[in-house]
């Protein structure tokens, strides 16, 4: 009888732990979304969006003699 109560209590505790874990999951850093956001901003800042040649690989214009 005692062991049965113990088991039930353990199950209850496990449930509580699972709940606590889930609450933690909710505030976990959303790594994939952050990566997407970073890429969008990097596209814009470095102007990589068009898929064409990025503007910044153009060599500096040579000085004319």
């Amino acid at each position, binding site marked *: 009888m005692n062991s049965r109560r113990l088991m039930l209590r353990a199950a209850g505790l496990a*449930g509580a732990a699972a709940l606590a874990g889930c609450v933690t999951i909710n505030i976990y850093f*959303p790594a994939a*979304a952050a990566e997407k*956001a970073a890429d*969008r901003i990097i596209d814009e800042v470095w102007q990589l969006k068009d898929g064409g040649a990025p503007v*910044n690989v153009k060599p500096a214009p040579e000085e004319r003699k």
Partner: protein
Amino acid sequence: MRLSVLLCTALAAALIGAGAAHAQANLEIDTPAIAALRSSMQSRHAQLAPFYASGAVGLTREGFVALRDAAAVPLAQRQQVNALVAAENQDRAALYREIARANGHPEWENDIRATFARRWIERAQPGWYYQNAGGAWVRK
């Protein structure tokens, strides 16, 4: 008792679902403050790009930029490049902070900075310098 265990399980499952949905959502990056930083950094990039290409300026592992080889900068441009690096880093710090704040989690700032640090380096052009995990400068 058994019922409460069942309820706990159901609730936990619901919360897991909510957590997963939350993780897939996009981050807010369209606030006025963030838009201003993006455009400021974009217009500065035209000036910084030649210094990335010459190796004078590199991407740090912390998500910032740094003057790594002053000798690669003509004397007349040293002051300019220092100012560019300082302004860029100020914008980057503000950007990471603002994204964390715009999403209601100021404590995410470091994670956001680390994410950017990785992405800046991964998307850098061949020839640019970046800091590896040990802090050494590596040419891409």
